């Protein structure tokens, strides 16, 4: 709600007609998932984001890279140094060349970027019917609708309506522009086992991984909003003061 009124304000400020034309077409309206970070002062639900990382690690990372995110960044989600080191060490990272000029694999360290499932874009495309699965590092910033869209997409698989011709290897998703998506429904009930006992429904996993991806795309969001509040309060006071000074300066001008 607040976010919407903000949008309205920003809209007015930006010469009202300036609204950037987001995704064209007449896709179905994306439902508002009411994420914890939606509200103007909202923050990330850490538990949800941690579960989301687990979903990414156990499901998505088989095909999707997150090349901009490092294991050390997981500290921001509330994991301890030791936990981060243990997670990083689970992955074999290609390093090198060594003294013999050979590339070699070693256990990951917190400073490493998330391991990529494929060596390069071409290998990723070759393994996925010719279309490389996109990197997920900034996915919520790269799609109109952001995390709401991702959640809708992950839960939007259904049988095509009668008469809809689905190309070979495509899947019907009511939230995907054009409805035919190359990625099959990635989530199945109880596909992962959450340590905190949360029931791993498709809806729950989709929500958690969307939260995680939103954090990955905008890790600065909480800091940004907190700083913004302080700066706007400061500026509001300063505006009052400068206006008072201006009034006094102009007090005896006949105009």
């Amino acid at each position, binding site marked *: 709600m607040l976010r919407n009124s903000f949008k309205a304000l920003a809209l007015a*400020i930006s010469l009202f007609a300036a609204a*950037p034309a987001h995704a064209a077409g007449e896709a179905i309206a994306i439902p508002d998932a009411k994420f914890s970070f939606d509200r103007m002062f909202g923050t990330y639900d850490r538990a949800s984001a941690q579960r989301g990382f687990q979903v990414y690690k156990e499901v998505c990372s088989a095909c999707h890279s997150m090349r*901009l995110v490092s294991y050390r960044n997981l500290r921001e989600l509330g994991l301890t140094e030791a936990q981060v080191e243990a997670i990083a060490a689970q992955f074999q990272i290609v390093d090198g060349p060594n003294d013999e000029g050979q590339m070699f694999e070693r256990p990951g360290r917190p400073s490493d970027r998330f391991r990529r499932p494929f060596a390069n874009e071409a290998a990723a495309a070759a393994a996925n019917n010719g279309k490389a699965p996109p*990197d997920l590092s900034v996915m919520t910033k790269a799609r109109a609708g952001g995390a709401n869209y991702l959640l809708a997409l992950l839960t939007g698989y259904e049988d095509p309506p009668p008469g809809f011709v689905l190309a070979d290897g495509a899947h019907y998703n009511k939230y995907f522009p054009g409805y035919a998506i190359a990625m099959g429904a990635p989530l199945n009930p109880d596909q992962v086992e959450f340590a905190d006992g949360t029931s791993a429904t498709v809806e729950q996993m989709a929500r958690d991984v969307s939260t995680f991806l939103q954090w990955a795309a905008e890790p600065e969001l909480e800091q940004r909003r907190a700083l913004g509040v302080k700066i706007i309060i400061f500026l509001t006071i*300063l505006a009052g003061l400068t206006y008072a000074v201006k009034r006094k300066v102009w007090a005896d001008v006949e105009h």
Partner: protein
Amino acid sequence: MSIGLHNSEFKNPVVRWVDQRLPVFTMMQKEYGTFPTPKNFNYFWNFGALAMVTLMIMIATGIFLSMHYVANTSLAFDSVERIMRDVNAGWLIRYVHMNGASMFFIVVYIHIFRGMYYGSYKAPRELLWILGVVIFLLMMATAFMGYVLPWGQMSFWGATVITNLFSAFPVVGEFIVQLLWGGLSVDNPTLNRFFSLHYLLPFVIFGVVFLHVAALHITGSNNPLGIEPKGPQDTLPFHPYYTAKDSVGLVVYFIVFAVLVFFAPNYLGHPDNYIPANPLVTPPHIVPEWYFLPYYAILRAVPDKLGGVLLMFGSILIWFVLPWLDRSPVRSMRFRPLARPFFLLWAVNFLVLLWVGGKPAEGHYVLIARIATAYYFAYFLVILPLLARLERPLPLPESISRPVLGGGPLPAGAAAKPMEKA
């Protein structure tokens, strides 16, 4: 006082020593201290100062961003995200720079609107106006090249489409396009030269802004009544009156700026620019940044390639000759009962072009774009020249301090709501 030294009036010995040899303090005092300024400015007159401050913000943030940015097609996207994630306060500097471009255009559009509404382009301020148009063109070039630097999908395809505009020109078109690209397509050489020019042009803008201000201080400012000050009773020293007033506008402006940066930093951007550039796939719906949409609408309104390009460039170049298209001796639209509604319609029409430029070029959007384009040019080429002959302006006030013809001083507060005419 020894011969050859400037006759300084400053008492502080250090200031005086410098001022005698290089009279910068005398100059500042003359141009920004005692400078006689019409006493009846409204808040529209803040926007020149706001634009100046925004330019400095853009240069400062840009210099610091350039210390982390890598102008290479394989690294540019990731280097920008590294600024967002790993560089200390990098997200803040980058979002200020990114949204600063939008704020700069908002401020400058209002500044231009004010100039048109109050006839600030008319004699003797023609050159002042022309320098302003030059600044605006340089801003557009700078903003366009800056948008290419993050090397997202919109960067790449924006660069491709805009540089291809030049291919519309007969004979030299292909030559110019290759010259811009430095290759056979938009690629690493293009990115490198755009980065170089994006760094250079703001300093050129700064130079032209200096000339713009210098010219302003020769003719003096226009004002909402559009009549020249008749004497000291019509003016106030710039300091403290307008320094105080500009400060109010500046702080309010910063609040708006801060709301955008801290709470909706990507609102004016396009999600596709967070997808790394891919020369093999064009996004389904490509649009330029919002501030270019009116010209983009004009481009698309014309079915002919060369015609569209010429009209698009013409839509801004025509501003250069505005002082000679509008021959009416009355500056302020307050006293032009016919021109005023036509101009306000033109301003709305500009916003319509902005809106339709972001819509797909199909169906009734094309028709709207064509009508709006026609009115855009008709206002300059037909309406203004005709009105100069046909319109009967309202009687002008005798002077700024006696705004009503033959009347006494205005009742207190009558001009205290300066935006009422807006």
